[in-house]
């Protein structure tokens, strides 16, 4: 990691104003990122989806639960931009409101997996020995569970009931994705910490009698968590698509949540007669996943130029 920092410094030497200012890994990455158009495009898209999730009423005045059956399956027009689905719901409104579930699932699953993964990874790598062995074997066990199969098993074992609230429905999907998603982060974190641990400044801090907590917090973590941030960002997109897959199978998000995955599943039968029912939710899902994966990509490039 320290080597990488030096590389970044060398490549950015052209700007003499910053030459003597000591820079952290993150400020280096930032200097790199702000010149990349891809970063701004993906960030813009993400911002767009986040605003859509937070305040859908900014984008549409429609009511996502209002079904006008008489207009069911009518194609897009000026009064209904994306057309209507089988039940007569306005697809534009439904698609806007569907962002919330996907973003919530993506963000919270990422936060939770990162939290679990970082804690396990740091403890295992920092203390080593028997603790490391036990923790890594547990990680291996979870790692061995196929992601989608595990999700299907969990969701069909604990189905939603009619009284489930919005947050219970979403929370359950977050939980299952987190249970199955943390091992990769834990492994990554462990590897990263093992790389940082032998460095002189860590040894120095220990020699000066710093507590383990202080060593981890001030010396190890800031230098070890770049890979986790990169992978988490890419995972966020993967979680959104995993949620859509589970919802598509009818076991992920259910009523009262409005979800792109459910909309895609419902529309599949009518692909020949009403393709717009399938097109728009799929398009939004793809864009959202793409935005997070693109952002992950540029961030990785910034943190780790060698892989470019």
């Amino acid at each position, binding site marked *: 990691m320290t080597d990488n920092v030096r590389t970044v410094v060398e490549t950015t030497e052209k700007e003499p104003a910053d030459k003597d200012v000591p820079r952290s890994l993150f400020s280096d990455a930032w200097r790199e990122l702000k010149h990349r158009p891809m970063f701004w495009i993906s960030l813009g898209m993400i911002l767009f989806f986040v605003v859509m999730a937070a305040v859908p009423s900014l984008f549409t005045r429609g009511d996502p639960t209002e079904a006008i*059956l*008489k207009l*069911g399956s009518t194609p897009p027009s000026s009064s209904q931009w994306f057309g209507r689905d089988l039940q007569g719901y306005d697809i534009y409104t439904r698609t806007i409101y569907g962002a919330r579930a996907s973003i919530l699932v993506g963000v919270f699953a990422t936060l939770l997996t990162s939290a679990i993964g970082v804690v396990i990874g740091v403890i295992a790598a920092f203390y080593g020995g028997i603790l490391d062995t036990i923790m890594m074997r547990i990680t291996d066990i979870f790692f061995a569970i196929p992601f989608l199969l595990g999700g299907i098993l969990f969701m069909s074992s604990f189905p939603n009931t*009619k009284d489930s609230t919005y947050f219970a429905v979403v929370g359950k999907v977050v939980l299952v994705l987190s249970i199955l998603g943390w091992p990769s982060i834990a492994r990554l974190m462990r590897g990263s910490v093992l790389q940082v641990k032998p460095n002189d400044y860590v040894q120095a801090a220990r020699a000066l009698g710093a507590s383990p907590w202080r060593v981890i917090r001030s010396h190890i973590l800031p230098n070890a968590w770049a890979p986790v941030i990169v992978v988490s960002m890419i995972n966020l997109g993967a979680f959104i698509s995993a949620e859509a897959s589970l919802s598509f199978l009818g076991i992920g998000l259910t009523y009262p949540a409005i979800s792109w995955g459910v909309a895609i599943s419902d529309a599949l039968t*009518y692909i*020949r007669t009403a393709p717009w029912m399938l097109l728009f939710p799929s398009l939004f899902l793809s864009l959202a996943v793409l935005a997070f994966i693109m952002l992950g990509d540029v961030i990785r490039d910034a943190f780790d130029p060698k892989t470019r």
Partner: protein
Amino acid sequence: MRGTTRTVAVAVMSAAALLAAGCGSGSGSGSTTAGKDGGEITIHGCTPENPFVPANTNETCGGNVLDAVLAKLVHYNPDTAAPENDIADAIETKDNQTFTIKLKKGYKFQDGTEVKAHNFVDAWNWNRDGKNGTLNSYFFDPIEGSADMDCGPGADKKPDCTAHPAKASKLSGLKVVDDYTFTIKTTEKVSNLPVRLGYTAFAPLPDSFFADGGKSFGTKPIGAGPYTFEKYDQGSQIALVKNKDYSGKFPGHADKLTFKIYTDTEAAYKDVQAGQLDLLDSIPTSALAGDKYKTDLPDRNLNKPVGVFQSIAFPKATADPTYQNKDLRHALSMAIDRDTIIKQVLNNTKKPATGWVSPVVDGYKAGACGDYCKYDKAKAKEAFTKAGGYNGTITLSYNANGDHKAWTEAVCNSIKDALGVTCVATPIAEFSDFRKQINSGTMKGMFRTGWQMDYPSIENFLAPLYGTGAGSNDSGYSNPDFDKKLTEAAAATDPATANKDYQDAEALLAADMPVIPMWYSTATVGWSDKVTNVKVTPFGTFDLSAVSLK
């Protein structure tokens, strides 16, 4: 259990005399000429649930095959569903309680033995015998002595035949008079017994069946029907060949019938388009949407009403007393826009119900439900206000393994729109769970129900569903006047009087609304360009005696 995803397969043979004369009515087939004899016809099949034992076959996968192999006392006219004598020469009764059945001579099982009276009596005794535990044993319940055939309940309350054997192993109401005559005595008066005798479970069984309790029969059934069972290749096909010794009136044209087994209707549909499959009994939803199948299979499709009635039932009073309010029931019924739902969601595969009896049966009278089954937002709201509204969320449960999600959601949206009350369609994963909750009376809120007729009679749409304590009375409905009318109808010796009584009974349902009538099902079928004269029975199956190669 008589359920709703259960489908009952019944006779598929047809009036051969008509067809032989080359003037088959060929409704909708686009061709009125009878085609040539011989050749092979392939039919969409599916994996039978059980071995081919008539009393254990209550779904169409095995039932369609058995119906081509077996002959019964009567068979149903493919156009009118009226019973016509097949093996029976005459079915006589004076009091609707003792029936004398005379058989035609010369009918032979495919193993060469002749069909005699004892083949019926032995078969029915075996089918009803408690220790055989057959799925269709309830068909024999009206016969005297049937109660003595049940095993006593064991420790787990299920019938236990080792600890508590049944009192009798023969139905006391069945008596062989001579080789070609036997009598049936029923416990109560039954005016429509002859109509019931065309069901698969009433088929005669050869003596060889009883040698090993139906084990070898289950793999290779033997009947007196127009086709002989040749072989069953598990998971791929079931092959039948023409019965050379068939002496009945309803033979088929093709020399060979092959039921090709598909797990996916989409694949079967593509095969019909490509000419790889001749007859398909259910068009997949993707092709129904926007009537695509009509352009995919021009002049090779048909949509015909079948004996299935769909409804929305109310919870029993013990589960939720709110729904006992009749105004609330009427309000909910009038709040449902049946026509639009059928058009938009169900691709016109249903006909809006105007009563509780399917139009395919004799005695059907339109409009029994009157204005209560017509969509009227204003009237619905008025009745809803009169009922005092509904506190909370109305739920409509459905079994998620059937294709019910879209229409239940549409019904709820319609109710929401008309009455301004929240309504949620709630899935219950498994059909068995769904039925368990209904039967135990723990189902809260409304739930979907459906009824496929066992035999084509107006009685079958009323007595088992709304009679006090009847087997499939899911809403726990009880009305002494209704029960009285049913008893009167069962005692009527003249079919017209019986039908009139049943119609009067049905009319009583409108005021109480035990279930909300939704729609009658239709069968939408398609066929390849190789076959002609395709007809569909009121049971939604193909008339295999009519169809032939071009």
